[in-house]
């Protein structure tokens, strides 16, 4: 990385920060990779298609011994509330029986005296009644990746032989519809080629309690498709069309995490994902060999971007908390670059997803490559909220209800 003016993490003086009284917040969410391979070959995948090919060196399956050791580290490190998400690769490649054993270990080690939440993020292909039975036994809530209707979904989410996966994924989602208490929601990656409202309505047809729309990963050196410098806020416009459809619905049939987060932030609350807001990142990734890493999407920046140094002895989670890369993501507004610190909406957008800020010359202390889109979307939502409140106040002043 070059020596740009706003470069940080490795140059961040954590010793000076702690001397001034700053203290890191312990990790409370753990993304546990129980299988490191995938049965799909999605074109936009940040694990298999990115610059970092570290997955090749990982064991395929996380063993019970590795998870047991990791859970003991978590138990020593974390507070009374812990969220553990079984992830991959495709976690269900590990099989329902292995998932059962791993969830049992997590519950036995982490459950007593703690609020433990278990989750599973899957592509849905192997989601069947035997998996549902395991999830029901351990209270595992499941989210599935679906990119909208068949044409939209199959644009990227394909098997290695090029076949689309939509029909088979929907069979998995049907299992969740039969076990609604296990159904966490659907994650959809945005593609500007797909119609926004048709995409949203295709997801709604699957009756998810929550939906989220994820911007495709990219950065200033490798911009996402359709995000040309100085170009129109195409992603912001795309998302705003869905926002209007969602906001104007007479009944709330599904939450949309990104919109719910922006609304909450506009009302003075906090976000619940890393997409927007300035809340400290308290997530650690545990690879199939037990190694602690940062979130996977950073792999799109440069090879090794997720790596967290550790020294022998001691709890690796405690050690990771003082690594500059982790600290930088817990500093809120202070970690933003100068442009963002001076921006009126920085408290709302928080410079967007950390991954999308990367530029080789200056590291991560930049605005998001999606800055025009986030600005457009947040402005649109703010206007819609203000207009609704004005309408209500006018109605009340005139004596109507």
């Amino acid at each position, binding site marked *: 990385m070059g020596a740009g003016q706003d470069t940080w993490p490795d140059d961040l003086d954590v010793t000076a920060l702690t001397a001034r009284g700053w203290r890191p917040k312990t990790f409370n*969410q753990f*993304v546990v990779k129980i299988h490191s391979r995938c049965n799909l070959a999605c074109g936009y995948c940040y694990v298999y298609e990115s610059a970092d090919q570290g997955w090749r060196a990982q064991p395929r399956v996380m063993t019970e011994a590795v998870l047991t050791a990791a859970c003991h580290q978590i138990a020593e490190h974390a507070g009374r509330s812990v969220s553990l*998400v079984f*992830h991959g*690769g*495709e976690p269900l490649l590990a099989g329902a029986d292995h998932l059962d054993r791993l969830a049992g270990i997590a519950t036995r080690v982490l459950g007593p005296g703690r609020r433990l939440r*278990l*989750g*599973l*993020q899957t*592509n849905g292909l192997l989601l069947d009644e035997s998996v549902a039975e395991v999830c029901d036994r351990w209270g595992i*809530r499941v*989210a599935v*990746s679906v990119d909208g209707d068949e044409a939209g979904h199959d644009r990227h989410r394909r098997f290695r032989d090029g076949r689309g996966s939509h029909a088979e994924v929907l069979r998995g989602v049907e299992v969740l519809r039969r076990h609604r208490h296990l159904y*966490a*929601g659907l*994650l959809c*990656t945005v593609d500007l080629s797909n119609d926004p409202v048709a995409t949203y309505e295709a997801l709604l047809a699957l009756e*998810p*309690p*929550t939906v*989220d729309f*994820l911007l495709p990963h990219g950065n200033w050196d490798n911009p996402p498709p359709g995000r040309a410098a100085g170009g129109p806020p195409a992603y912001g416009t795309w998302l705003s069309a869905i926002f209007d459809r*969602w*906001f*104007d*619905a*007479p009944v*709330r049939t599904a*939450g949309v*995490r990104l919109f*719910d987060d922006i*609304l*909450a932030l*506009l*009302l003075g*609350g*906090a976000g*619940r*994902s*890393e997409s927007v807001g300035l809340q400290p990142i*308290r*997530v650690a990734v545990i690879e199939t060999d037990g190694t602690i890493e940062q*979130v*996977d*999407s950073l792999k799109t920046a440069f090879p090794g971007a997720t790596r967290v140094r550790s020294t022998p002895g001691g709890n690796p989670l405690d050690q990771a908390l003082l690594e500059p890369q982790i600290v930088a993501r817990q500093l809120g507004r202070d970690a933003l670059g100068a442009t963002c610190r*001076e*921006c*009126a*909406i920085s*408290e709302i957008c928080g410079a967007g*997803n950390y991954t999308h800020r990367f530029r080789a010359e200056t590291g991560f202390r930049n605005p998001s490559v999606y800055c025009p889109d986030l600005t457009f979307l*947040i402005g649109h939502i*703010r206007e819609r*909220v*203000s207009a*609704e*409140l004005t309408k*209500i106040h006018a109605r009340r002043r005139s004596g109507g*209800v």
Partner: protein
Amino acid sequence: MESQAVEIVDLDDDDVLAELSPALRAAVERVYSSDDQEGPGGFNSFVDADL
């Protein structure tokens, strides 16, 4: 830097809350709930992670 927070007055007025759109009402309830950590149907992970 001007704050971009939207001010909602009369929040303790149930009538005002009832007049809000369902999406906005859910946001108000979330922000002012005592447990702003996990709503019903919320995702398990903070991570913006697809598969």
